[in-house]
């Protein structure tokens, strides 16, 4: 009898397939995984603690650094929670642009997911193609907010500024081009025997287990649970749009791949519907106690300057109370829970990051599998360490 023993292997925190600084302590029996202990926190910046010392306005830039592959979804969740506490209505144009940008962000995040997931499993071509398409979303970010990633574009009450005239054409061309590209990716992957062998039957998690662990987003729908916050608990005017919520049946990596691809098609449809609704109008609510005055007034009148200075230095008081808003971020339910004590700083801000909770499932999904399949499981969970560690 040969002597056998369990071997402990350290994967990460510097490992290309862990998508950031995730460290996995893996116990292996030969090549099979016996136990996984994820070690997180390498990227902990204390965003929740910092927000207690900053005004609501100053907290906003912290949020787009959470899931840095989907900055606008993070901004949206935070701003909606603050608006719920303030009880202010947003002009229709601002709401529509928010939906367009949230869906552009979903496409961006899913493109990065597809690129990295395919690269991890060994299909490098898709990586290069998907990053080419993602570049258009980055350009759109730059066009409207001046920054490629840290957008900081939404404001309580609307948007920081209106979009430039070329925005509409750029987004429409992008939404028109994506279905063709998606077909191309499908041609490279869906019937590719290597891709199918690596993904079919990999990382299976049943609908009951997925709900129990609290998985949300495409990973939950891949397990056949028909739940999408955009349709089921609508926010930001999503009830005005028609789209399909795809679900999987086999609960494996391949189904989650198919679900995300259909979601990208649906995002294009939502973008087109939103562009059709886009009418000229104000992009900031008429709420001077919360919103910054227009720049012309700041530069040309002392009242405007004082108004600007007051909001910039003191912030705006938010009525006491608490609110929770969950938005369907590309990776799952991103929730913000803010407790206000009536001052201009959050008393407590809790971020419910989807990746943090989805990552809990890694042990259940990869126990007994080969270590090479673990890479596919990490890819299919679509985690971002920025929001796991906060």
């Amino acid at each position: 009898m040969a002597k056998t023993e369990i071997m402990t292997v350290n994967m990460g925190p510097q490992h290309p397939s862990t998508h950031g600084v995730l460290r996995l302590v893996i116990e292996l029996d030969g090549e099979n995984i016996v136990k996984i202990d994820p070690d997180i926190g390498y990227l902990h910046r204390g965003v929740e603690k910092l927000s207690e010392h900053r005004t609501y306005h100053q907290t906003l830039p912290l949020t787009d650094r959470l899931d840095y592959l989907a900055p606008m979804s993070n901004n949206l969740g935070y701003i909606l929670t603050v608006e719920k506490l303030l009880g202010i209505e947003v002009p229709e144009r601002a709401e529509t642009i928010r939906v367009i940008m949230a869906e552009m962000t979903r496409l961006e995040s899913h493109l990065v997911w597809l690129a990295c997931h395919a690269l991890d499993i060994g299909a490098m071509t898709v990586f290069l193609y998907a990053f080419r398409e993602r570049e258009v979303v980055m350009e759109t970010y730059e066009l409207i907010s001046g920054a490629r990633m840290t957008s900081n574009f939404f404001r309580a009450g609307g948007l920081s500024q209106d979009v430039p005239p070329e925005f509409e054409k750029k987004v429409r061309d992008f939404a028109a081009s994506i279905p063709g590209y998606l077909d191309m990716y499908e041609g490279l992957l869906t019937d590719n025997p290597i891709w199918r062998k690596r993904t079919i039957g990999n990382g299976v998690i049943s609908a009951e287990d997925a709900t129990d662990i609290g998985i949300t987003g495409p990973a939950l729908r891949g397990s056949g649970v028909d739940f999408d916050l955009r349709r089921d608990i609508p926010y930001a005017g999503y009830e005005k749009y028609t789209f399909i919520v795809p679900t999987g049946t086999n609960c494996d990596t391949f189904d989650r791949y198919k679900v995300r691809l259909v979601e990208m098609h649906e995002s294009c449809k939502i973008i087109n519907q939103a562009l059709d609704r886009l009418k000229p109008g104000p992009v900031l609510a008429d709420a001077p106690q919360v919103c910054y005055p227009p720049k012309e007034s700041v530069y040309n009148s002392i009242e405007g300057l004082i108004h600007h200075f007051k909001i910039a230095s003191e912030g705006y008081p938010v009525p006491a109370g608490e609110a929770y808003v969950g938005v369907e971020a590309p990776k799952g339910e991103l929730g913000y829970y803010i407790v206000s004590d009536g001052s201009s700083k959050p008393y407590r801000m809790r971020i419910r990051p989807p990746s943090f909770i989805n990552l809990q499932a890694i042990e259940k999904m990869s126990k007994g599998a080969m270590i090479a399949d673990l890479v596919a499981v990490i890819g299919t969970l679509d985690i971002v360490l920025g929001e796991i560690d906060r």
Partner: protein
Amino acid sequence: MADTHRAVSKLQEKFAASILEVKEDRGDWIVTVAKESLIAVLSFLKAECRYTMLTDVTAVDYLGKKDERFMMVYQMTSVAHKDRIRIKVPVSESDCRIESATQVFGSANWLEREVFDLFGITFDNHPDLRRILMTPDWVGHPLRKDYPLQGPGREPYKGRLS
């Protein structure tokens, strides 16, 4: 905005003695229950009201603002009925422990570890109660209100604007 919430009336019937407060705030329903009945309430909501997902577990530190310093907050979502409910449980500083919800919901595992790490609330019968975001040898609990923003043993942060 409904006048009553479908689960709140059931809870009031079944757990009349242990409900401390029922409140509606901006359309969200919040039920505060006593610490002893937390697991019974969560199990009841899961089994009878189909709140099958424990979306979030967190805590709020009300240092000097309330008699009982901490408030545990449980966000629950029903996939079938597409609605939410929030359960809150006060926890005092002198008896800073509460029964773990992992026996009802698997998602509570890491979420409770995070509360333990950042607030220092102990969860009884938790399968794996370790720090999760901070390093294992860290001293103190950063999200407590008496923990300085720049860490212990440093000049307190005065802010750029003051």
